[in-house]
């Protein structure tokens, strides 16, 4: 079984959406994750932008070629208030860190390993930071 890139994206988005809307917390129900190029023109007051790409990985194992494909996910947290950025961050960590997600065709994507933090900056009345993750089983 192998999911398509779209199915993998959908699984990641669904997991993050669920975490963003879960109680308890102060997050309104419209908090969501979007593809980076697909954020509504009227920006929501807090959202997560996703960027998914394949990543070159060497055959690390001596026994033969690496059995899996590598991927990289960048989760960018954007909000009007810096506290909300940290809350988005916390929820995304809960949703994906070290977890493998099941796609609609039953295969796994992940686990997502934390790679690098990109610190929170403010500009133009917005605050934004990001984290990057590497994972296996990418398609």
């Amino acid at each position, binding site marked *: 079984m192998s999911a398509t890139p779209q199915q993998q994206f959908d699984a990641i988005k669904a997991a993050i959406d669920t975490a963003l809307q879960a109680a308890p917390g102060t997050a309104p129900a419209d908090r969501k994750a979007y593809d*980076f*190029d697909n954020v509504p023109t009227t920006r929501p007051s807090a959202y997560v932008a996703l*960027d998914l*790409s394949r*990543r*070159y*990985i*060497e055959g*690390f194992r001596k026994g033969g070629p690496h059995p899996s494909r*590598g991927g*990289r996910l*960048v989760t*960018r947290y*954007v909000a009007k208030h810096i506290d909300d950025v940290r809350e988005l961050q916390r929820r995304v960590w809960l949703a994906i860190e070290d977890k493998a997600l099941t796609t609609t065709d039953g295969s796994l994507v992940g686990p997502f390993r934390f790679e*690098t933090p*990109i610190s929170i*900056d403010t*500009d133009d009345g*917005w605050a*934004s930071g*990001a984290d*990057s993750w590497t994972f296996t089983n990418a398609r």
Partner: protein
Amino acid sequence: MSMSVRVVHNGVEGLARDMAALPARSVRDMKAKTREAGIVGNTLARDYARVSSGRHGKLYPRAFTHDESTYVGGFGAAFSTEYGPEAGRPQGNMEFEWGSRNQKPHLDLNRSADIMGPSFAQEVRALPDEWFW
């Protein structure tokens, strides 16, 4: 009919000679390999940046530089190389690598490092073989 046999004798003296040369040679080789990795990695990253930087980041690829440092002392030796856009150069501080609120991540350095990491490790692993040849 004549026959000649050439005997190559690799003895303890040979090993001793190799080992005596090792401190100087290993430092020289490690330094060179590390520098090479910086040059190749930087070239690769700059090429990615040339493709991804676009109209508003025309000068960004030219900001890419590499820099090496070596420490050899009482506690051992450290060789390091560093590459990427230099903030002091025109557009060198653009937020392209990881993107920003309005900018998708370009990952020029990451894509370069994904390739350079394993290949640099392989090059370094191969060095001891050369030292004892």
